């Protein structure tokens, strides 16, 4: 039981590292693109939000596994 809890904790920490890194990189690239081409800001923002939501979706899948482990 304790090992399952430990696994859930470590797992969620890893998820946050991965998801945070992904979204951070995405936002940096989007900002750079907006800086280079300010007139395309609207389209870039929309694409960025969709991509961020997809990254978030993947990390939520992993989070579900952590929830299951934590509930053991």
């Amino acid at each position, binding site marked *: 039981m304790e090992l399952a809890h430990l696994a859930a904790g470590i797992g969620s920490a890893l998820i946050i590292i991965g998801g945070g890194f992904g979204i951070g990189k995405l936002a940096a690239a989007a900002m750079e693109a907006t800086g280079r081409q300010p007139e395309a800001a609207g389209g870039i923002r*929309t694409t960025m*939000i*969709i991509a961020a*939501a*997809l990254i*978030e*979706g*993947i990390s*939520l*899948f992993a*989070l*579900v596994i952590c929830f299951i482990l934590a509930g053991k």
Partner: protein
Amino acid sequence: MYTDSTKAIADSLTRPHGQGASQGSDWILHHIMDGNYLDFSPIGKIYLPEIEVMGFNISITRHVVFLWLAAILLAFLLIKTARRYKKTNIPNRFTGAIEVLIYFVKDEIAKPSIGGGYEKFVPYLLTAFFFILFANFLGLVPFSATVTSNISVTATLAIATFSVTQWGGMRKNGVFGYFKGLIPHGIPVFLLPIMIVVEILGLFTKPFALAMRLFANMTAGHIVIYALIGLIFTMNTIAVAPVSVGMALAIYMLEILVAMLQAYIFTMLSAVFIGMAVHQDH
């Protein structure tokens, strides 16, 4: 001056782990999860009736009450707006605010993401957007419950999006053409078995991610607020109260942003999925 719920919190925190069923974070889940009562804690609790029909438990719970409240509020405000626009085209202060949101969903979400023939899907997107927005904001009102932090509610919304997506795709491309169009053109034949499995899985992971995203975002924010408030009881001192209340307030502000953002993202992704199903050629 301990009320019932603060005593329960203090009890569950001081009791050592493993003794009894209660653990340190039980009271948080108690607040997040569905229950058979409305909690107006310092004043009292209103217990709701339990109804069972043919072995199914269809009792009216806290989340059902706030689900209905959101629906009634939504119907009242939007019907009022619609009536006003039937009479005159000049918006007043209130209908103007609703109109801005409706045009936002129509022009910024539906039109660019779906493309041609987007008008058919605007009513569904508007319904989803306004319902999620109202449910999220209702959850931020003190003494209320967040409907969207119940996985059943978000799953129902995701199933609605899934149905609309499939219906739209099949109507435009035909049933056979729709399933054929799921697989990209010009891939080698030996990849086909893998691609078919992947694409069919992809059909179901999209609504699953939609449901999980809304659920996790709304639940996580409330858990963080409760955990920050709970610090006062864990440390058992009033000195930590200004810090934890201040931080809870900051998270609450973030929650207002998240409430709007999640309504936007759910609608946006629904529109993108519908657009992908309707226009399969790109």
